């Protein structure tokens, strides 16, 4: 099979077909996975062995190298979902709703990991697993939004119809998230005075910054690889559902 057909067909149109999309993107998967593993090996070595302890927090500072990339991904994945929602509603691109569906559980997972590692970090440094601090609270609300979106996906039988409705809700959520963030900040400064949580400080030395950036790259590539893989899985799941429907029709006919 040759992918090059008419010269007018752009890559954008070509990947609209699920089979073409898998054929086009499958060769990327392994290099992406290997690169992710290499970056993780390098990042974890830098973070756990080669970087200095914090003069106040000691070894617990190393939780940051896992925590901060997860927190970044919790918002980045929502951005991916919102873009895919636009793709579904505006361009009706068939792969956009697959991308949107595949991203939701990953986003929920990264958000939950950000909260979990944050709690583990908070216990030794602040003396508590949970504090109703502005950032933590809005991350928790974000987790609820992710879980609501997953529940909405699961409530529909027809996944194509579900995609368009979830897309509307995802975009409504995207408009709302900045408002939630702002209001929660307003609320937490109202309830508690500005406190130790600003102590993470003005600047970081390069010995801490370098492993952090490597871990950022590693986690982001991990998301991209998992996202691509679960898009392939979703395409296969839909294909199986179609085949089963055809087989059932064959039986009755």
């Amino acid at each position: 099979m040759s992918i090059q057909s008419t010269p007018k067909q752009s890559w954008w149109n070509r990947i609209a077909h699920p089979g073409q999309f898998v054929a086009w993107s499958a060769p990327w998967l392994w290099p992406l996975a290997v690169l992710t593993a290499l970056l993780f090996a390098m990042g974890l070595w830098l973070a756990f062995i080669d970087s200095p302890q914090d003069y106040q927090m000691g070894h617990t500072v190393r939780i940051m190298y896992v925590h901060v990339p997860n927190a970044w991904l919790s918002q980045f994945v929502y951005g991916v979902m919102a873009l895919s929602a636009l793709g579904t509603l505006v361009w009706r691109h068939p792969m956009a709703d697959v991308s949107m569906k595949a991203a939701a559980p990953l986003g929920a997972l990264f958000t939950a990991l950000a909260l979990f590692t944050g709690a583990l970090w908070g216990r030794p440094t602040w003396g508590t697993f949970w504090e109703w601090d502005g950032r933590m609270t809005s991350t928790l609300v974000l987790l609820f939004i992710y879980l609501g979106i997953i529940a909405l996906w699961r409530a529909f039988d027809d996944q194509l119809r579900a995609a368009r409705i979830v897309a509307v809700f995802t975009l409504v959520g995207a408009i709302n998230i900045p408002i939630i963030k702002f209001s929660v900040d307003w609320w937490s400064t109202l309830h508690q005075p500005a406190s130790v949580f600003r102590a993470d400080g003005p600047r970081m030395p390069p010995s801490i910054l370098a492993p952090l950036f490597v871990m950022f790259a590693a986690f982001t590539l991990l998301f991209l690889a998992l996202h691509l893989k679960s898009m392939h899985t979703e395409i296969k799941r839909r294909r199986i559902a179609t085949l089963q429907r055809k087989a059932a029709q064959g039986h009755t006919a």
Partner: protein
Amino acid sequence: MSGFVAMLRRELALSWRGGGNVLTLVLFFVITGAIVPFAVGPDKPLLARIAPAIIWIAAFLAMLLGLDRLFRPDHEDGSLILLRQADLPLSAVIAAKVISYWLVSALPLILASPLLAVLLGMDLPAFARTLVSLLLGTPALAAFGAIGAATSVTIRHGGLIAPILIAPLSIPVLIFGVGTITAAQSSAAPLFLAALSLMAMALAPFAAALAISLAED
């Protein structure tokens, strides 16, 4: 415009003649508020201090639970399909429904709130601020609720989905609503609350109309 008014009258007549629903929601609101003292204990100063929070949570829950009857009856008897083919744009139909939903579910709660204020031992200035914050904030709850109800209208057992979806989005309303009551006089919370309500009322009908027309295709 006449279509809009006719739609409004239809909705109000339906809920007026439907009778029990409005009173049930008010009863739910009062009972939810009156249950809290049993959980907290009959500690009057404490109850007076958390009374704004109790009233807001009771109103929040009552409005979320009432959402299911916003579009579902019309979807089930097929009138939603007819309404989509009317001359009036679907977003205007939904705006009329949101306004009438506010009139038959939020306004009765606000009228019933003096009862809770007495039970919870609020003083008069605090109660006056509670009234203002409910008046300013409940339109936003109704508008957000319309989005949730619209997304779940074609789900057969979707009654619980809408509250799950809408509760996180409504957190700012709750924050500024309670902030209006508890914060100092010069606080900006009432302005934020009013801004939220205006914005939600302006934008939500379009989002809900989009969701409904996509869901019923």
